[in-house]
C-alpha cells in the first residue's frame, strides 16, 4: 500500500498531464461529469458521483466512427490518446467490465471502445460517503471494490492511500508515493469497513433470473410500465446500458457515420421500416429493459447488467425505483 499527501496528489496529477489526457470529475453548475482537465483546480474529488456515468469516456454518447468523401473512408479508430480516468467510483469501474463483455467479446471487437479502453489507466476513488440509493454490495461490488481499476485511492483525511492493482497502474506511480505506515493502512481498513456498513440498501438478486425466465407473459409488466413516461433518462445515465444507434450525417456523399446512444425505452428503437414494431408499447419496452439487465444479460454473460449505482433511482422523473421493481419481481 502506497500513500500520497493531498498536496502531493495535486503535483502528481499535474506531472501526468504532460503525457496523458486527465479525465476527472468536474462540475458545471453543480452537475458532475468526467471532463478533460488542464489543472488540478478544476478537479473536485469530494464529489458524490457523476451525473452521466464515465462509460462515456470509452463509449461516448455521440462518436464519429469514420468520415467519408466520395466513397473514401477514413476511420477515427486510429486516433489513440493516452488517458487517465481519475476518481471514478468503484461501481462505475465494475460497469466497465460488464461493457467489456459486450464490446470486446470473442466474436467481434468494437475497436472504438477497445482502443480507448486499452489506452486508459483507471484510478478509482473509494466511496466513504455512499448514498442511500447505493446498492452496489447487492451485485458483488462494494464502496472499495477493486474490480476494473488500475489503482484504488482511499481518502484518509489529509492523504490518499493508493492500492496498486495492475501493472498498468504501477507504471504511473512516481516517487511522490511513499509506503504507507501500518497505522494508515489500519485507518483505511476502518474507513472501508464503515463504508461497507453504510450501504444499507440491499436488493435480493438471488433467484431473479430464474423468476424472470417464467415471467415474460406476466401481467406484472402491464402494471409496472403504466407510470413510466418513456424517457431515456434511466438508460442514458446507466453505467451499463450500451444500446446505440448508427446514423449518417452527410451532405450529398460527403459526411460521417456517427453512433449515438439509444434507449430501449424509445418507441423508434425497434420500429421496422414496414411499420411493424415488436415492442409497440411501454409495457414491452419496460419488460425489455428489466429482462435485458436481469435475465438476458445473465444468460449471455453470467452476470446481471446492474452495478447498483442508483443513478436511475435518483434521476427518474416519476421516481421509479429499480430496487422496488426487483423486490416485486420476487413477489410475483
Amino acid at each position, binding site marked *: 500500500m502506497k500513500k500520497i499527501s493531498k498536496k502531493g496528489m495535486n503535483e502528481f496529477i499535474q506531472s501526468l498531464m504532460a503525457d496523458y489526457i486527465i479525465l476527472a470529475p468536474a462540475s458545471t453548475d453543480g452537475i458532475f461529469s468526467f471532463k478533460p482537465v488542464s489543472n488540478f483546480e478544476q478537479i473536485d474529488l469530494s464529489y458524490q458521483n457523476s451525473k452521466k456515468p464515465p462509460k462515456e469516456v470509452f463509449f461516448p454518447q455521440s462518436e*464519429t466512427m469514420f*468520415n467519408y*468523401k466520395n466513397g473514401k473512408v*477514413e476511420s477515427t479508430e486510429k486516433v489513440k490518446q493516452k488517458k487517465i480516468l481519475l476518481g471514478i467510483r468503484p461501481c462505475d469501474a465494475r460497469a466497465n467490465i460488464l461493457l467489456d463483455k459486450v464490446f470486446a467479446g470473442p466474436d467481434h471487437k468494437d475497436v472504438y471502445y477497445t482502443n480507448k479502453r486499452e489506452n486508459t489507466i483507471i484510478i478509482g476513488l473509494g466511496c466513504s460517503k455512499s448514498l442511500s440509493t447505493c446498492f452496489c454490495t447487492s451485485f458483488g461490488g462494494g464502496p472499495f471494490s477493486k474490480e476494473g481499476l488500475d489503482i484504488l485511492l482511499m481518502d484518509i483525511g489529509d492523504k490518499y492511500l493508493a492500492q496498486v492493482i495492475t501493472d498498468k497502474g504501477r507504471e504511473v506511480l512516481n516517487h511522490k508515493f511513499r509506503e504507507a505506515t501500518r497505522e494508515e493502512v489500519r485507518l483505511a481498513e476502518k474507513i472501508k469497513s464503515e463504508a461497507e456498513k453504510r450501504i444499507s440498501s440491499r436488493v435480493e438478486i438471488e433467484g431473479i433470473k430464474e423468476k424472470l425466465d417464467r415471467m415474460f407473459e406476466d401481467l406484472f409488466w402491464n402494471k409496472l410500465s403504466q407510470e413510466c413516461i418513456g424517457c431515456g433518462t434511466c438508460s442514458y445515465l446507466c453505467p451499463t446500458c450500451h444500446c446505440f444507434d448508427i446514423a449518417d450525417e452527410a*451532405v450529398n456523399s460527403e*459526411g*460521417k457515420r456517427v453512433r449515438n446512444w439509444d434507449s430501449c425505452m424509445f418507441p423508434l428503437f425497434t420500429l421496422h421500416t414496414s411499420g411493424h414494431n415488436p415492442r409497440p408499447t411501454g409495457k414491452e419496452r419496460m419488460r425489455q429493459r428489466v429482462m435485458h439487465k436481469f435475465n438476458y444479460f445473465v444468460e449471455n454473460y453470467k452476470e446481471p447488467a446492474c452495478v447498483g449505482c442508483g443513478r436511475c433511482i435518483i434521476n427518474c422523473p416519476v421516481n421509479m425505483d429499480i430496487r422496488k421493481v426487483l423486490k416485486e419481481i420476487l413477489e410475483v
Partner: protein
Amino acid sequence: MKEREPKILAFLCNWCSYAGADLAGVSRIQYPPNVRVIRVPCSSRINPFFIVKALQQGIDGVLVAGCHPGDCHYISGNYVARRKFAIIKSFLEYIGIEKDRVQFTWISAAEGLRFAEVIKEVTEKVRHLGPIRKPVKIRRG
C-alpha cells in the same frame, strides 16, 4: 480579404410574392443577387422549422413573404401564418438570433418594385449583421 456576401433565403408565396418577384424580373428591376427563392403555395406553408433549419445550414438571413392581409388565395392562410411568425420572430431574438436575420413582409403580385426594394433592404440589414453564428452547424471531415 473581400467580405463574404450574405446568403439570403426567401420563401415566397406562389400567388402574390412570387408573382411580385416575377414582375420585378420581367420589368428588369435590379436587386441584389444574394437572395435564393423557394416558392411555396402559401405563407402558411412555412413551418418555422424551415427558417431555423435554414439558419442552421449557414443561411445568413431568411425572408418570408406572402399576400397582403385579406388577399390570401386560400382566404386566411396568411392570417394563420402571421400568428406563427409573430411568435417565432420574437422567440428567436430572445435566444440571441438578431431580429433582422428573420424578416416577414407582404408583397403582392403587382409590387415588382417593392419586391426589389424589400430585397435590397433585407440584404443591407443582413450584411450589416455579418455572417450568422449560432446555431450554424459546423461540419468537419
